C-alpha cells in the first residue's frame, strides 16, 4: 500500500488521506499512519508545488552547467559537489557518467548573472577542470508533467 500512496502523492501532494483511503480500499487511519511513518523515515522528503514561473511573470533564467572535476586525495566528487550545492543560486546538482562529471542547474535573474556566477564561482573552484554552459530556452516536460495546455477531449460523449 505504501508504494501506491507514494504514487498518488507524487502526482498530487494535496490528495487527502480520506481520498486516498477510498481509492485504495483502506481506512483513513491506515493511510494517515503510513504517510506519517514515511514522513518520519524520510521516504517522503517534503511536499512542493510545480510552478510555471514564466506564466506567473517572473523573470528567471536557468542554465545547465556541465562540470569536469579532477578528484584528488581527500577531495572527492562529493566534496566538490558540496562546495557547489551550498550556493543558493544552484538549483540542483547531479553526479553523472560521460565526458563531464557533475551536472549543475543554476538559477538567476539574467543570463549575465548566471554567466558571472559560473565564471567567478564555479570555474575557479579547486578541482574544477572545465565547464560547459547551456541556457534553458523552453520547458516541455518537467518531473513527468507536460508543460502545455491539456489536449481537448477526443472521445464521443456517449458510446456503448
Amino acid at each position, binding site marked *: 500500500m505504501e508504494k*501506491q500512496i507514494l504514487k498518488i502523492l507524487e502526482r498530487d501532494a494535496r490528495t487527502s488521506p480520506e481520498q486516498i483511503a477510498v*481509492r485504495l480500499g483502506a481506512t483513513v487511519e491506515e493511510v494517515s499512519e503510513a504517510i506519517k511513518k514515511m514522513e518520519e523515515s524520510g521516504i517522503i522528503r517534503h511536499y512542493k508545488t510545480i510552478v510555471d514561473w514564466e506564466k506567473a511573470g517572473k523573470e528567471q533564467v536557468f542554465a545547465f552547467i556541465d562540470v569536469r572535476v579532477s578528484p584528488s586525495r581527500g577531495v572527492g566528487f562529493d566534496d566538490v559537489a558540496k562546495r557547489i550545492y551550498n550556493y543558493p543560486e544552484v538549483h540542483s546538482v547531479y553526479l553523472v557518467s560521460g565526458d563531464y562529471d557533475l551536472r549543475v542547474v543554476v538559477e538567476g535573474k539574467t543570463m549575465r548573472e548566471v554567466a558571472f556566477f559560473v565564471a567567478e564561482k564555479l570555474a575557479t573552484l579547486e578541482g574544477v577542470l572545465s565547464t560547459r554552459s547551456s541556457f534553458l530556452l523552453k520547458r516541455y516536460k518537467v518531473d513527468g508533467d507536460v508543460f502545455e495546455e491539456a489536449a481537448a477531449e*477526443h472521445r*464521443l*460523449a*456517449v*458510446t*456503448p
Partner: protein
Amino acid sequence: MKPISKVVHEIPASGIRRFFDIVSQMKDVVSLGVGEPDFDTPWRITEACIYALEHGHTHYTSNYGLLELRKAIADYFVRTEGLEYNPENQILVTVGVSEGMDLAMRAILNPGDEVIIPEPSFVAYKPCISFAGGVPVVVCSYMENGFAVLPEQIEAAITSKTKAIWLSYPTNPTGAVAPREILQKIVDLACKHDLYIISDEIYDRLTYDGQHTCVPMLPGAYERTILLNGFSKAYAMTGWRIGYAAGNPDIIEAMMKVHQYTMMCAPITAQVAAVEAIKHGYEDSEAMIEEYGQRRRVIVKGLNDAGLKCLMPGGAFYAFPSIKDTGLSSDEFAERLLFEEKVAVVPGSAFGECGEGHIRCSYATSIDKIEMAVERIGRFVSKLK
C-alpha cells in the same frame, strides 16, 4: 422504393444513440457515458505505427493477419494462461471484437438457430445474432447474483434449436465477473448439449480482485469455444479497431472465409501497433489498470453515498447501480439527470430489458470528474425524495 431488409428494419435503434444526440448539444456535461478508456494510446504503440508507415508498411496483410502478430498473440496465451493456439490456423485478426462477433455468428449459424445470451450485456450481441439469421434467446442476470448468469437459467433456455451460448465476463455494462465454478457448469452444459461457446473477453485484463477466468482454459471448453478478444480496452486502442478470434482450426477457417470476402484483412497500421502493444505494452497497460482499480472504489462509494445501491464491480470499467428506489425508469432517470445536473450516464435498458432499473456509469474518466459527477448525482437523488 422497395423496403429495406426486414431483418435490419426490425432491429430497434440503439438506446445510446438518442443520448449521444442530446449530450452533444449540451455544454459542461460530465460524462460517465463513455465506453472506452480516457487514456490516449501509450506513445510507444503509436510511435511504432508511425515508424512502420514511414517505412512503407501500407499494404494488405494475410487474411488471417500479420503472422508476427498472430505469433505474438499465441505467445501471450501460452505465457499468461498456458493455453496453446497455433498461430498458423487458430488465430484470426479482426477489425475489433465487433467484427469477430459478426464472423463468429455467420460462421456457425443456420437460419433459425438459437443463441443463448445473458443480459444486460453489450448492445451489439443480439443484432449480430439476428443479422446472421439466428434467434437470440435472452436470459437475465440479476444484481442479487452479482450480475452473473446462473447455469440453471441457461439450462432452462436450451432447446433442440440451441446452437451456442454467448458469454462475456467481465461484462459491459455491469462489470460482473463470473465465478469459475459457474463458468465450468455452463461449459459442462455446452458439452452435454454439444453447443458452441462464444466468449467475449475484451475486458479480461481489467479484472481487479483476483484472476480472470479464461473460458477456453476450462476443462471441456477449448474445442467448442470461440474466444474473442482485442486491444481496445487493455491498451487504450479503441479507435485502432483491432481484435482477434481464437479457436479450433475449423471454426477459425470458417470465420476467415467470411472475413476474406468482406474485410480482406484488418488495417496493417493497427496490426503493427498491436504487435508493439502485446510485446512491449504490458507496463503501460498495468499502470492504466491500477488507475481504473482506484477509480472503481471512488465511484462505487460515491454512488452508494448518493443513495444508489451499487455493487463493487469485479472487472471492466463500469458501475451499474440500481435506481429502483427513485421510482423513475432508467430512461427517465438518465434524461433528467442530464438536463438537471449535466451528468451523462447510459440507461440500463439500453443493454437489454433486464437492465431496466439501473444506469451504467463508466469510470473511464478522471477521478476529479468522477468526484464531481457523484456529487451531482447525490444532489439529484436527494431532490427526488
